[in-house]
């Protein structure tokens, strides 16, 4: 319990960011829903259309809705210019507001529809104008119902806001995603407790306002409102009180190695006198776009990922030729600066437990072909959609009995428990050594090269001091050191924090 307490205490800035994001999304949801509800109350067609749209939005999984705003905002840059943010606060705000829309809209429309027609006739009869009727009669009579809708929206939004971590917005999802990655359940629990607690507090305060409105006790409503405003002000103070815009933002995709390398880079920059900020848990495509547009400043990416996903190349060059082409492509298309290779590769490969491989005398991927129809292959959710998998599958003629998707963490467990016979694993993963796995040889070179490289956003790449501070990283990290660091945060016993793992990695490689 003590661990959770300590983890909770460290979440102050995430909580503040979470409060501000949720409050903004609910406020925007209200600002859109109420005028729509007024319009809908005057026109059944509008009511059908708006409620239908809001219900449709609800059927989209929150994670997908958040991710969808990235391409939407990207295409909107044609209208609003290159300054339009495509990651972080803006897309999170828009997606969550859409989510908040339905409960507020539905309650507001229902409240309007259920108003006593006699009261409306009286309002017209005494000579109220449209706005007088709205302000003096319809709004106060609908307010308790609308408030109930806002309560529902608040609970949903605070819960869904944890997912905004995946598109680069700090939130209480950060500890949850980081903890899930490393099986650090204390961190996951701390994030869940904080976000659930926030939802409960918001629900209770909004409930006070609702009750105050329904029973016409102004003090109660004002007290609830005051507490909500105070909470938001406190979050604003935490968020902007100590902020400075010179922070270097370091991105990390959602796996351990990325978290550790981000801290390693962050520690070097802090030693050079910069303040840094982390955007953890980014999706792969989102992360590359983020660094090339300057939404983040630094990112560790992999040559094979850029080659197949961003450059959409299907051919396979040797590693030096590939890197040269990537540097040329980055410079030409976005001005993103490639600092250089870190020195290890985190490729995909097909891995099996050593005992199983020896028993079946599996040495190369080609040995799988004949027996694959009786075997199960596991992979992360991306793996089976990647061109490299298509390449390997077609090169060696692999046809498995079944394929299963796992989160990277559970993929290794599945291999241990026999739920998968072979997995698409990462070569730098700490669990390779820990679980005594072997990679099958790839004599045809079907898996492309995945050298880890450091990318700097166009603006950051022009900062000589930053380049100087990070240059010693180039060529400094061998795959053994990286595996050890990965294992130190992934193992079940004696787990290190990302910061500590990064410090030990730096020590080990002599940085």
């Amino acid at each position: 319990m003590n661990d959770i307490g300590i983890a909770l205490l460290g979440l102050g800035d995430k909580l503040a960011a979470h409060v501000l994001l949720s409050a903004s999304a609910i406020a925007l949801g209200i600002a859109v829903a109420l005028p729509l509800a007024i319009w809908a109350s005057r026109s059944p067609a509008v009511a059908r259309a708006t409620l239908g749209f809001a219900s449709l939005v609800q059927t989209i999984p929150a994670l997908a809705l958040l991710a969808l705003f990235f391409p939407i905002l990207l295409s909107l840059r044609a209208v609003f210019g290159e300054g339009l943010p495509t990651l972080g606060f803006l897309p999170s705000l828009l997606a969550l507001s859409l989510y908040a829309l339905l409960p507020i809209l539905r309650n507001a429309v229902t409240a309007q529809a259920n108003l006593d027609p006699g009261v409306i006739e009286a309002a017209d009869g005494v000579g109220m104008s449209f706005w007088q009727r709205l302000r003096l009669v319809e709004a106060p009579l609908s307010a308790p119902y609308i408030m109930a809708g806002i309560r529902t929206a608040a609970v949903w939004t605070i819960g869904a806001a944890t997912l905004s971590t995946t598109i680069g917005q700090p939130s209480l999802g950060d500890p949850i995603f980081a903890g899930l990655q490393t099986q650090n359940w204390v961190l996951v629990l701390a994030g869940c407790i904080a976000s659930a607690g926030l939802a409960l507090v918001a629900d209770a305060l909004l409930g006070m306002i609702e009750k105050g409105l329904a029973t016409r006790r102004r003090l109660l409503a004002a007290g609830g409102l005051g507490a909500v405003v105070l909470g938001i002000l406190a979050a604003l103070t935490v968020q902007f009180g100590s902020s400075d815009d010179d922070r270097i933002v370091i991105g990390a995709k959602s796996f351990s190695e990325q978290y550790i390398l981000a801290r390693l880079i962050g520690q070097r920059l802090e030693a050079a006198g910069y303040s840094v900020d982390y955007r953890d848990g980014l999706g792969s495509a989102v992360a590359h776009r983020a660094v090339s547009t300057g939404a983040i400043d630094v990112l560790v990416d992999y040559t094979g990922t850029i080659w197949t996903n961003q450059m959409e190349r299907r051919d396979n060059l040797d590693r030096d030729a590939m890197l040269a082409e990537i540097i040329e492509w980055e410079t030409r298309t976005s001005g993103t600066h490639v600092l250089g290779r870190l020195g290890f590769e985190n490729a995909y490969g097909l891995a099996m437990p050593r005992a199983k491989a020896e028993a079946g005398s599996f040495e190369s991927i080609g040995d799988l072909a004949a027996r694959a129809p009786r075997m199960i292959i596991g992979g992360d959710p991306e793996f089976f959609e990647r061109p490299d998998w298509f390449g390997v599958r077609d090169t060696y003629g692999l046809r498995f009995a079944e394929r299963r998707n796992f989160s990277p963490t559970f993929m290794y467990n599945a291999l241990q428990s026999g739920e998968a016979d072979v997995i698409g694993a990462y070569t730098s993963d700490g669990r390779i050594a820990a679980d005594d796995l072997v990679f099958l040889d790839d004599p045809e070179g079907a898996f492309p090269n995945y050298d880890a490289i450091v990318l700097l956003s166009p603006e950051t790449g022009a900062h000589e001091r930053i380049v100087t501070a990070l240059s010693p990283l180039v060529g400094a990290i061998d795959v053994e050191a990286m595996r050890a660091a990965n294992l130190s945060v992934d193992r079940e016993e004696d787990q290190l924090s990302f910061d500590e793992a990064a410090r030990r990695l730096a020590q080990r490689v002599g940085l």
Partner: protein
Amino acid sequence: MTDAPAPLLEFCDLRKTYETTAAVDGVSLAIAQREFVALVGASGSGKSTLLKTVNRLVDPTTGTVRFEGENVESLPLAALRRRIGYVFQSIGLFPHMRVDENIAIGPRLVGEKLADGRIAELLELVDLDPALAARMPDELSGGQRQRVGVARALANEPHLLLMDEPFGALDPITRDALGERVRALHEELGLTTVMVTHDMAEALLLADRVLVMHAGSVVADETPHALLDGAGGEIAQGLVAVPRAQADRLAELAR
């Protein structure tokens, strides 16, 4: 015939059609100042629709309504309604406002504050204890609520009072007492009153003039006395027959 005063209210060939049916089918008539007129008819005869064209809760399909010489369609809607008191069956007190706030709503809409003394006076006009001013509507009985409804209608000192089945939902004793009170107020305040009712007895007892409507047309326009003498035609006499027969039977029972 030269110095007859201009009518307070005038309908000129008024029609209101809903899709294929005519709710009001060509009504022309004039109502003089200080008249108490009852509009009587069966359900669906068009009496409520006709009444509501005056304060434009219903807009006619063709024809005009003139109020104090002006076409009601030429007047700003809110301003027109503030000059006309309106009382109707479902009362429509604002449930989130106290009694005094309900009564003062008309003046409040034009930025005036009704003095407490005036609210007490209005409550007394409708035979209510001024102490009720601070109550909420759901703390009142049905009869008290409709009295507040009448007080609210009178707050703007209207010249014209429109009543749509005002006593329809009240018990007979309350109904009778409130009817008497409204008739007395009509005299005291010099009002012109138009009351829609389906109860011929109520019309005969309260009104100076009874208009009988049938299928959108006015089929009889008589004084209560003339109706009781057999004037007004078949439909009107059919309506008069009901209370007359009741009165006869009661008289027989009492013998």
